[in-house]
């Protein structure tokens, strides 16, 4: 997974499949950035995400909830069309900000 920090914002480029096999790795990685490096704004880039299920979505929602009381934010960008339906069903778009491509720095 590619990562980039710019203007105190952590950009994570999630690739391939996000399920129970690797959701915990993403969780640890993000928690480390929040706890150890003081990151408060995170953008998850999903253009190269091929598959996600509730294990993956759960970790994303969990990180959002962790950042809230710290005054932080988590945003999602570039969800591929074949994942729209599962995103919609999960209710995440009602809670988390979804950025269209051009608004992302």
């Amino acid at each position, binding site marked *: 997974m590619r990562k980039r920090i710019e203007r105190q914002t952590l950009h994570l480029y999630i690739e391939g499949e996000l399920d129970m*096999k690797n959701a915990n790795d993403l969780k640890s990685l993000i928690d480390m950035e929040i706890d150890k490096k003081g990151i408060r704004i995170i953008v998850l880039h999903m253009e190269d995400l091929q598959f996600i299920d*509730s294990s993956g979505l759960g970790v994303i929602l969990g990180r959002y909830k962790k950042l809230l009381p710290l005054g932080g934010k988590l945003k999602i960008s570039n969800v591929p069309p074949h994942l729209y339906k599962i995103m919609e069903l999960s209710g995440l778009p009602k809670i988390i900000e979804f950025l269209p491509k051009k608004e992302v720095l």
Partner: protein
Amino acid sequence: MKVNKIILTFSSLPENVTIARMLTSALGAQLNLPLNELEELKVSVSEAVSNAIIHGYNNNPDKFVTLKIDATTDKITIQVIDKGRGIPNIKQAMQASFSTDPERMGLGFIFMQSFMDKLNVESEIDHGTKVIMVKHINTQPPSSH
């Protein structure tokens, strides 16, 4: 009618969720399922298998999960079976946002329900759980969507 039956039994390991999904996907592709339905099948299998490993077996890798797929020309029936701890209250378990694990979303059954045409859960405490899902195959040429 031609029938294809496939039974996959595998160690209760996280990496086998990928294997189970890939098998489902390969079979669905042979049945010429449209891409979006393939995707939905994969999510449903992923949820049921993850549940067997996480909830049924509490991540014990020495246990076994079984995925049964029956494909005919007009429907695909998927069963995910574990011999784990079972579900005390199936109705409650199937409700949106219900989870016995505070870290999880409680959406697994919701996804299965939304993505499949039929969902049935049988479970017995300490004997295990069987999730049965059916997806009808649209043999008409695609038109209305």
